[in-house]
Structure formats: C-alpha cells, structure tokens
C-alpha cells in the first residue's frame, strides 16, 4: 500500500453503482470520500456514510432489526427532504454545490456531488479587499439560498467553503450538506459538524452525546435554527479573511461556543476594507442568544446586497435523481413497512 493508494469503499474497490472510483480524497469524520467518474464520463465526489449501517435480517432479532431500520428510515427521510428542497430552482442566486445522488448499496449509504475544481477558502487571506468582499458576498448569497429553504447547513467551516477563480474575481462555492437539517428540527443523536465552529446552542445540544456526563444538558431541538449557522458564519469569515480564528475574552471553555455559553465574548477583529456596518453586524452574529444575531439577509444588506423576499416556487414531487442500487426518493405520505424495506435489501446483489 502506498500513500495515495485508492481508498476502497466496497468489495471490489473499483465500482459503486455506476461510478468508477479514480482517486482517494480523504477519510475520517463521518464519511469516507473518493473522487469517481460517472457513467456519462463526469468527475464526481462520492461519500460513503460511516453510519448508519442498514440492518441485516439474518443477524438481528426483531426488536433490534426494527430499531435499526427505523433509524435508517429517519436518516433517509432527512436526506431526501434536504435534497428535495435543494432541488428547487435558485431563488436569489448563489453557489451551492448540490448533491446529485443519494443511494444505498447493500448496507451503506452514499451521496454524490459534482466535482468542483476549486481551492480552499483559506486562500482568501491577504487577497485584495474587493476580492475578499466578493468572496464574502457570494458565500453569504449561497447561504441565503439554504436559509430561504429553511435548511440549516450545520457544518460551516473553511473546508466547506471553496473558492473558484472567475474573471470577476474569487467566488465562494458552498459544499457538503451531509449534516444539514430543517430549521428547528435537528436529527436525534446528531453528532456531526466540527466543534470548532459550533454555535453555543449546538454545542450544548450535542454535549448530551459527546460530552462528559456532568455537562450533559438538554436543549430544545427547536432552538437549533438557521441562526446557529450565523454564529459559524462569523467565525469562518473572520478566520479566512483575517487569517486566524477570532480571539475570545472572559467565559470558560475551549471553543468559541463554550466560551460564549459561559459568559465570555468573541472579539471579532474588524475586517480591513469592509464597511463598518458589516463589521458591526459580524460582531453581533457571535452572541449567545440566537434571536439577537443578524440574519443572512441582514448581513448581506450591510454589503449593499438588497434583501429580497423569498419567491416561493413549486416543490417538485420527486425531484431526487437516484441511480443504481436502492432508490431513496420521496415517499410523500407513504411509510415503507418493514417487509417492503426488506424486499429492497437483497444482500449479494
């Protein structure tokens, strides 16, 4: 095995559904990623989710099978709902790298994204302020597309905001909606995202699953809204434009979220060349109370981008395109029963 060898994600290591794996990208976190080529000869970015694993009838008793199946169906439902909403036509204009396929192959779930030729948003450090502002506007415009659909990205971090160089300047591309959920409806046992960029309410909500027992507290899931993303927006923009994470003062804890939750503050350094109103608003997105944070529309407004009311567009009934293996698409009122699900799980396909 050599460094850079293909990271295999299935038995033969070469083909999943209609995709031929061409290159390892990364491992770790909650998924394993590869670059692959589709049957129509396009490069794609494919992720295998490390959890959940679809249950096997042969090894689980009825209770265990039913509980695991229920968890998988909830997982499918969340991803289907997000993909349905993302499939709606663009409302404002933005640069979302939307997932194009979501499917299950035997026991594992996969999601496929277009492959984007781009660079890290950390490359924005030291750029011309006008270019930095264009990057910030396109990042926020992309996020507005999500929030207009009531979608919380839930994993905003520099690695998930790419930069594409265009004649007009550097444009942000927002990627990775694997942790996304509907505003106020986080999944049970959500353990994704990056703690470095959590909002205080997200950190507290997740402490019950990832923290020490003494810190396990309960948070009303309804508090995890699009405002949670705004906290991360402040941290991300500061880091990729100022070149270092925002500093903190007071409070207790390690992350920005913990410190703010314990009475401290995030000290946002004004970003050079940006309007004062924008810098004031950026300071305000990193406060404790989600209700006190500016919305993405308000933040864009400080950059001179007019906030338009969302234009509602019809929801496609079954907009998720699925290939190969087990289709995961809109059920629209029909709950799959256990037998139906088992029929779809033919091992050894």
């Amino acid at each position, binding site marked *: 095995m050599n460094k850079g060898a293909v990271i295999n994600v299935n*038995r033969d290591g070469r083909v999943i559904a209609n995709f031929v794996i061409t290159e390892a990208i990364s491992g770790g976190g909650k998924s394993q990623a590869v670059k692959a080529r589709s049957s129509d000869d396009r490069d794609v970015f494919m992720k295998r989710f490390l959890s959940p694993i679809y249950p096997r009838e042969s090894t689980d008793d009825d209770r*265990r099978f039913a509980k695991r199946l229920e968890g998988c169906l909830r997982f499918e439902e969340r991803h289907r709902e997000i993909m349905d909403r993302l499939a709606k036509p663009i409302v404002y204009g933005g640069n979302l790298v939307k997932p194009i396929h979501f499917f299950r192959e035997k026991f594992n779930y996969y999601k496929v994204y277009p492959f984007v030729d781009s660079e890290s948003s950390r490359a924005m450090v030291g750029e011309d302020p006008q270019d930095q502002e264009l990057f910030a506007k396109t990042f926020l415009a992309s996020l507005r597309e999500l929030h207009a659909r009531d979608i919380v990205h839930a994993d905003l971090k520099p690695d998930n905001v790419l930069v594409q160089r265009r004649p007009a300047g550097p444009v942000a591309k927002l990627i990775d909606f694997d942790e996304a959920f509907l505003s106020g409806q986080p999944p049970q046992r959500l353990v994704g995202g990056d703690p470095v960029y959590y909002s205080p309410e997200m950190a507290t909500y997740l402490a019950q699953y990832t923290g020490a027992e003494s810190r396990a507290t309960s948070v009303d899931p309804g508090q995890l809204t699009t405002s949670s993303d705004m906290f991360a927006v402040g941290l991300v923009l500061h880091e990729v434009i100022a070149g270092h994470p925002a500093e*903190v003062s007071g409070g207790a804890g*390690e992350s920005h979220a913990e410190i703010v939750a314990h009475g401290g503050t995030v000290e946002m350094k004004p970003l050079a060349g940006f309007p004062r109103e924008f810098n004031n608003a950026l300071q305000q997105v990193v406060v404790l109370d989600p209700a006190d944070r500016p919305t993405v529309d308000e933040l864009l407004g400080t950059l001179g981008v007019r906030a338009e009311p969302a234009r509602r567009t019809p929801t496609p009934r079954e907009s998720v395109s699925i290939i190969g293996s087990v289709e995961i698409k809109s059920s629209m009122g029909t709950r799959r029963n256990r037998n139906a699900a088992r029929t779809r799980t033919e091992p050894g396909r």
Partner: protein
Amino acid sequence: MSQQTKTTYAVDIVFCIDCTGSMQPYLESVKRSATEFHRLLEEKMAVKNKGIRQLRVRIIAFRDIGEEGEESIVATNFFSLPEEGTSFNTFVSKLTAGGGGDEPESALEALALAIQSPWERTMDKRRHIVVVCTDASAHPLGKFRLPARLSNLDLPSNMDDLNAMWGDEVDEGLMEFAAKRLLVFGPDKYPWSDLSELFENCIWVKSEAGQGMTDADQDLVLDQIAGSV
C-alpha cells in the same frame, strides 16, 4: 484580555499490529516514529485548530494463534503520552516481525481485545480509535481460544457477535457511539472488505496482501487518525 481558542480532545488509540514477518518495514517505521508520535499527531491536528488534552496509546501485537499459541497476542496497558513515552518506546522497540506461518493471522481476536479496552469515559470531547494494521487475511472467529493469560476477556464466536460488541447507534455494545472510530489498513481479503461495510464508523484503507506496510503508510495512518478526531 483576549486570547486564542483551541478545541482539545481526549484521545485513546489502540493499535492492533500484525507482527508477522512481512510487516517488518512497517514495524521499523512504527519504532522510528514512536518517540515522536504525540508531536506528530498534535501537528496534524493543529492545522485544524484542534489539540490533544490527553493522549493514551495501547498496543496489541498479534501473529497467528494457531502457530504461536500463547505468544501470539501481546497486549499492553494504555500508555499516557508524552508522560509515559519512555515505557512506550521501550515496549515498541522490542517488537519484532516474524512467524505467523502462512495466512491467515489472528487479527480478529486482537480486535476483540481492543474493543474491550478500558476507554476514557469521563472527559469531554473524547475519541476512541482502534487502528488495525495488517497485510494478511484473518482467521474466522471461533476457530481458536485466546491465550490463557487473556482468557478473562470475552472472545466472540463469530463476526456478528464481534459486530454486536462493536455496537451501533441502537445498541452501543462496548464502544461509545459518538466517540468510536475503527481504521483498518488491510488487504482485500477476508474479513476486511466485509467488516468495513458492516461495522459502523469504520474506514478501510486497502493494503497489498503480503507486501507489508511502509514509512509512507505510517504517515497515512497518522493522517487518518488525525482526520478521525
């Protein structure tokens, strides 16, 4: 007074290392990097503004129970690094590659022992990582008993029982769902491809059967560990 933040983790890592003959190059690489392990991991995590609050490392060296019997599996306690670095280095320096006979080896028994490790369960933001490094297939469970000095530990009789021990979102088994990661560096032979499909939070990186592992692989192992925290 303002200051920088750093999110730190309590990281437990159990290395299940195949110590049969063909793994000699990898073992030498492990020995060379043992003294630097804490620093190397911290450097990789620092790139993402993360740090290590506590690092404990345990080694389970395995060969083939069918060939080496009592000496086929050697397990250490957790070493706290860097505090117990000297003891850790001393143990690692004594690892030698040899034996094992023909494939398969006793990697699944080693994995079962790893799962039963005394994991840190009180500190905030903890990660429990099992790393299996081998270039061989594994004996199916149920074929051999554990060496007598390890017989106080449970040995599952098949892969399903091992999977239940590893646990999932519904039944945690012996591992904590949010904390656990399983990184397998193994060839495309039984059971590694199956295991990566059926065990939650498992990443399989393919190694070449019978070709050992190298310095570059050791760096890849570190990358994968850092990515899993």
